C-alpha cells in the first residue's frame, strides 16, 4: 500500500526567507510524486510533479521540490517566501505499477508567511 506523511501541521516563515515543507512517502516501486496547494474555499491547484529524471523539479510560482530516493522524501521548497504563498499544501504519491491513477495524499501542511 502507498502512503504519504507530512510531519508538520504548520510551517511559519517570514516573508523573503526560504521555506521548506516536508514530505515522505512509502510505495512499492518507483513513485510518482506531486505537490498541490489549496487556498480557502478552493479546490487543489497543481504545483509540480516528479516522474523520472532530474531529482530537482521546478514548478509553478517559483516552487521547486527535491526527490531523494534513499530518504524517501520529496520536500517542497522556495527560495524567497511571499505572504501570498500562505495556504494549505498537500503532497501526494501514485504507484505507477497499479492500474489507474489514484492519488494518495498526506494530511496537509499549513504554510503561514508573515510580513
Amino acid at each position: 500500500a502507498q502512503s504519504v506523511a507530512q510531519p508538520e501541521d504548520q510551517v511559519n516563515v517570514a516573508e523573503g526567507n526560504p521555506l521548506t515543507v516536508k514530505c515522505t512517502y512509502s510505495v512499492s516501486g518507483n513513485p510518482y510524486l506531486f505537490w498541490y496547494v489549496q487556498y480557502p474555499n478552493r479546490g487543489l491547484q497543481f504545483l509540480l510533479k516528479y516522474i523520472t529524471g532530474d531529482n530537482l523539479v521546478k514548478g509553478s510560482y517559483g516552487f521547486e521540490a527535491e526527490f531523494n530516493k534513499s530518504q524517501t522524501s520529496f520536500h517542497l521548497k522556495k527560495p524567497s517566501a511571499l505572504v501570498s504563498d500562505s495556504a494549505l499544501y498537500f503532497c501526494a504519491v501514485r504507484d505507477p505499477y497499479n492500474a489507474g491513477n489514484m492519488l494518495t495524499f498526506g494530511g496537509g501542511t499549513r504554510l503561514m508567511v508573515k510580513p
Partner: protein
Amino acid sequence: DAGVTQSPTHLIKTRGQQVTLRCSPKSGHDTVSWYQQALGQGPQFIFQYYEEEERQRGNFPDRFSGHQFPNYSSELNVNALLLGDSALYLCASSFGTDSSYEQYFGPGTRLTVT
C-alpha cells in the same frame, strides 16, 4: 479554456437522504476521479471513471456510487447519508489513465449532513 466545474457549491442534507453531485471535466480530459476531503484532512480517493466504467475504487462503501456520461461528465451518488459523510467532495480530471499525468481539481462541493 474551461477548467473542472462542479455543482452544486454547497448542499445540506438530512441523515438517511440521498445526494447527487455533478462534475464536468477540463476540456480535453476524459477521465474523472472523485475524492472526499474531511475537515482538516487530506483528500481520500473514492473512485475513478474512464470510458463510462468505474476503473479503480478506494476504500469506500457501496453507498457511494457513480456514473460517467458519453460527454465525460460524471456524477457521484451517496445513499443513506451519515453524519460522517459531511465533507468537501472534489472532482479531478485527467487525460487517460496514464498515471504520470497530473490531475486537475474542481472547486469542490461542500456537503453538510445534519
